[in-house]
């Protein structure tokens, strides 16, 4: 089942299935948010926004608005660090 990254709870892993078309898309991709990658939601800021995710090799924080552009499916696979 796919949903967007802003709905994933901290501690869960998810695999990126698609990034919605947007001006920010190339930038998100350059930061390493590529189809097929696995990310882990680490924690959220107070008020639940922004969120911090673990990506290949580093921790990225982004606002929920940006996370909403990232379509994912939850998985049990781990982020390879």
């Amino acid at each position: 089942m796919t949903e967007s990254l802003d709905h994933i709870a901290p501690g869960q892993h998810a695999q990126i299935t698609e990034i919605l078309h947007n001006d920010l898309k190339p930038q998100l991709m350059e930061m390493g948010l590529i189809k097929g990658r696995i990310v882990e939601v680490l924690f959220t800021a107070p008020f639940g926004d922004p969120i911090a995710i673990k990506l290949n090799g580093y921790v990225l924080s982004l606002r929920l608005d940006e996370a909403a552009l990232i379509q994912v499916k939850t998985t049990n696979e781990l982020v390879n660090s």
Partner: protein
Amino acid sequence: MKIALLGNPNTGKSSVFNMLTGLRQHVGNFPGVTVDKKIGNIKIGVETHKLIDFPGTYSLYPRSKDEQVVYDVLNDSSSQDYPDLIMVIADASNLERNLFFFSQIYDLGMPCILVLNMNDVAQRAGKHINIERLKEAFPGASIEGINARLGTGKERILSLLENAADRRPENKFLKGSEICSLDDLQCQEQEASLRYQQISGLIKEIQENKEIPKKDMNKIDKILVHPVFGYVIFAAILMVIFQFIYSFAAYPMDLIDGWFAELSVFLSRSIPEGIFSDLISQGIVPGIGGVIIFIPQIALLFFFVSILEETGYLARVVFIMDRLMRPFGLNGKSTVPLLSSVACAIPGVMAARTITDWKERMITILVAPLMSCSARIPVYTLLIALVIPNQTVFGFINLQGLVLFSLYALGLVSALVVAWILKIFIKTREKGFLLLELPGYKAPQLKNVGITVLEKVKVFVFDAGKVIMAISIILWALASYGPGDNMINAEIEARKSALAHQLDQEKTEQLIASEKLEHSYIGVFGKSIEPVIRPLGYDWKVGISLITSFAAREVFVGSLATIYAIHDDGEENKRLIDRLREEKRRDGTPVYSLAMGLSLMVYYVFAMQCMSTLAVVKRETKSWKWPLFQLAFMGVLAYVGAWITFTIFS
């Protein structure tokens, strides 16, 4: 030879730069954009090479104002900064994303070196990189692993530099890739996708991951971004910083103040009397003093800020503040500029550079001077001592302290409200965003901190200093000369009345100074604006002080002292306060009433009485439009605010 230092943010570019150049560096400006470039010299053998430190970027395609620089320089071979050699600093613990950028540079076909930094971090994370295999993947580049923190690898880099410029990549890493045009997002997306595909294949070959028991870094983060502790810790850190900036910086500031006062006196005695002597002792020296006196505060502020930045904590502050700042059209990254502005708006405005979003950056710059800076303190303290009784309210709160606190609060609240209004009016196509790497925690490196502090102080002294100096000299001239015979007559009159009242020498001189000021150009001007400021409760004497304090707010106090012919006795201002209390209107009511005092305080909360801030805003926004707009809206706020205050309390 010109060598460009490029790489992702936070990979150690500046550390490598400092390691290679030591203190042989200076800050310049990239033409057309507002980002500072650092240029340093490296000596190899007999030759000296120029090393240029660029802002960190994730990609060749610029996503913010300061990233634009990299793209512009690399795409214009006639640019004065066009490099002969590119040195990319990569974080070995995060190879994939760093190679993404390096491979883009490699595919430009220019001579390039890849420096793998942070090997210690990679090792601790259990990553081992096979450099030989990496070299096979990029046969046209020289590759070297170093540790900029320990300073190991300096010799190896220097020897690489000697002949690296002769080698250039023959084949592209990503076959058939061409540079996309800046507005062709689809082309860029496709490139990103293909490039990452190829790089992740490469990483599997060259990087071994050892499973090592991980220390849970998350634990620190969970506390620092905790909904309660996160803010408590941040507030506590702020308290410590401001304690240093306000209380402890006062000692060196008093010393500096004293030195310059003595220097003025000494010079006025030792240089033969005349215009030249006056210009130096009353115009230039106090002007320089007015700049130097802020150095302790600015140095302390940047000392703390750069320590917080080096440790990686600042990114967490941005993270927890972002949601709070957003409704006001600001960004989590606006926190530091606004906080810095409590010391001085100049470093605050400069710190807004890190905000990638244009609109959020503009709003931050525009509202930063509304935060009450330290130059307002002398004005606030004088006025509070003058009109607010020193008594306790609600049993334990000191009324004077309460008023001071309210002034700061008024500044903060108005900054937020104005930001919120500007958010509605400043139009952009793009929506604000935040994509921020949360770097791992590190112990700060004192060398980097020291160099940052030195650099910021230099920029302040030379950039803001020029303007403050110029304005002080102009104001001095306007206060020392008057139309026609005004000044001479004023002096004669003053002498006469001094004789009649049998004043001693000191009193006579003060009287002359005061009479002269009244008849100078500034005095005439001050009187002519009286009708405009009367609704606020001010007379022409205050008018003169408002004008002279346009260069810098704290001048207000000294100016009043001159007008009332009182020897400025420094911090306490006892005599000035007594004198101001005696000042009566024609109907016998005091001029410095509660209403008038409060109105002046409110005026100073809002008014843009600072030439140097305007100059820095011009420098940072590359246009006079924004500083003038700022001057106007803050002026309106000040006038209306002061008028309302005066009306309510009188």
